[in-house]
């Protein structure tokens, strides 16, 4: 493999810096939660590099000290993700959201799923951002070819160059549509903060403590929080008093 290709393959598909433990932790979360798997599957269908975006969103609200990578450190196919994440972490609302989510895996998962859902719904509605999505898809496709053609160096390099070209297109569109993207991301983080805070407040009002909630299986926690936003609080009370599955988990928090 040429050095150039090797360097290209070193580029990350995650825009938030993650170590082995973070990656393992997220894999375990996906394995454990049907809700998260559904979100990941929807993201994979309608967003180029949707699964890495979900992980980035989760890391950004869960990790105590998330660090956004430089643009030059990530694959061209995730430049749209990078654009989203770099705007997200610039908003004070993001810091406010993190007050409820850092090291709380269900609150962070709920926030990440909400942010993702918002982006998947709103970004394609704007024709300009739709173009960025399309260019991102092309970059991802070319990137996959480059990975698959590792042993055909010349063709793999061609694919990597093509991926980079599409990445440049994403960057240009994002720059042109700066305000549209910023507004969309701001809307996402603002609503996500309210959504998560309301869910946690409702549970608090029902007498479900954080410690009690966090001892439940992840999906039970997520379902409980989603139900807590439902006006039919009786149902919530029933859920809260039913016997939830307790889990033994090896996380890093």
């Amino acid at each position, binding site marked *: 493999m040429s050095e150039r290709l090797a360097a290209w393959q070193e580029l990350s598909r995650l825009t938030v810096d993650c170590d082995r*433990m973070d990656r393992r932790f997220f894999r375990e979360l996906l394995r454990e939660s049907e809700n998260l798997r559904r979100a990941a599957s929807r993201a994979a269908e309608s967003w180029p590099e949707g699964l890495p975006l979900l992980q980035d969103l989760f890391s950004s609200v869960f990790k105590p000290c998330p660090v956004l990578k430089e643009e030059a450190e990530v694959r061209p196919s995730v430049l749209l993700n990078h654009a989203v994440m770099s705007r997200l972490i610039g908003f004070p609302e993001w810091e406010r959201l993190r007050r409820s989510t850092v090291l709380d895996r269900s609150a962070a998962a709920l926030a990440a799923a909400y942010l993702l859902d918002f982006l998947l719904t709103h970004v394609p509605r704007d024709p300009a951002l739709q173009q960025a999505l399309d260019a991102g898809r092309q970059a991802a496709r070319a990137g996959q070819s480059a990975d698959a053609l590792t042993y055909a160096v010349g063709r793999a390099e061609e694919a990597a160059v093509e991926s980079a070209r599409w990445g440049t297109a994403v960057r240009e569109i994002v720059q042109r549509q700066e305000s549209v993207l910023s507004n969309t991301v701001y809307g996402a983080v603002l609503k996500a903060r309210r959504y998560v805070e309301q869910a946690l407040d409702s549970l608090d009002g029902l007498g479900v403590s954080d410690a009690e909630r966090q001892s439940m299986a992840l999906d039970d926690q997520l379902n409980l929080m989603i139900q807590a936003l439902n006006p039919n609080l009786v149902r919530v009370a029933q859920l809260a008093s039913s016997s939830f599955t307790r889990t033994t988990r*090896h996380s890093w928090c």
Partner: protein
Amino acid sequence: MMETMPKPRDAVAAVRAKLLALERELNAAVYERADVIRGMLLALLASDEEAPIPMVMVGAPGTSKTMLAEALCEAIGATCFEWLMNPSTLPDEIFGPIRTSLMVEKDEVRRNPKGKLPDHAVVLLDEIFQGNEATLNLLLPVLAKGEWFNGDGPERLPLRLFLSATNRVPDVSGDQPMLAALWDRFVLRYVVRRIQEPDHFRQMLRDAAGRRRDGVGARFRPKTRLTLEEIDVARTVVRNVNIEPALDDLTELWRAFGGGSEESNPASDRRWNQYIAVLQAQAFLAGRDDVVRDDLAVLQHCLWRTPEEIPTVRKVVVEFLTPWAARLEDILAEGQEQIERFYRVSDDPNQRLLVGGEVAMKLNSLVNEIKTMMQQEEARTGTVPEELQRALAYLTSEGNKMYLIRVQDQAARKTR
């Protein structure tokens, strides 16, 4: 002064001590062959008159296979029938010529085995799979039942140990299906590689020069000596080693390999039965009257059928015996990554405080995971493996060092 007659148990212990001394001597003389040397001792102890436990060594020429076999032979005072097989090797060369006088006078077809395989306690057939069909067919009952056919019926052999060496494993599922039955008879299968460690290689050359200087030649002559009678005493004890304590574990391992599935389980029921003798011998050498779970490690040298299966078989056996081993490797890698991450930002106390909090939390979770593994192992086996203790000590001490740095950072920040 009259010597006290050794008690039977003492006699057995003395034989075991001699066998272990021989093992140490061979290991000191030949580097990186500990598994093979142990395998030869197991084959010697596990074999019965009626049920030999043949062993095959797979490896390139010049990897000490023959030398080890010869050294073992010399140590146990046995004569060794050693033959290099090739496609033109005749049955006469292995079993002796047919006695023409008997054929003419009495119309009997009998061989004269003097000086041939049936006349020896130890057999070493080099490149056995190169032999022709006629010769190999005659070898099958030798391997299977320790007998050979001479004239009208089978005759018992004085065989104590059957060893074989080969450059490569026969392709029994491809173009050599006729060798399948023969290959299946080798209960113990060891791969012998060239020396890998540079230090061992250097020492090997130095030893060779020493032997040249002393004029002792390339052949290694062990000082430890045993008799065939002593070996027979040990074999009687081996036969009585209790396998009950390991039956559950054996059944579990059998299931891990696919249980009764002919496709996935690499060993037939007959082979699993033969493994009992190997495990009993392993327990005997460990000084135990019972086979225990740890003895099952030796089965990684019994269960594979093709060289491609070796890593998988090894993995299944190792993971079965030490279910925590693979995870511990990951834990240490994860911990190391955290430690390096902390020291990467060591020039910036503010960054260090931020990153340090997360790193400390992660290290703490790894430490807790190791503690859980230790508790589980202690409950399961009664002991805590050293590897787990070392890993715990390492991560705890690194975590403490980082904690002190962070405390100093915080103090410095307050002062500022």
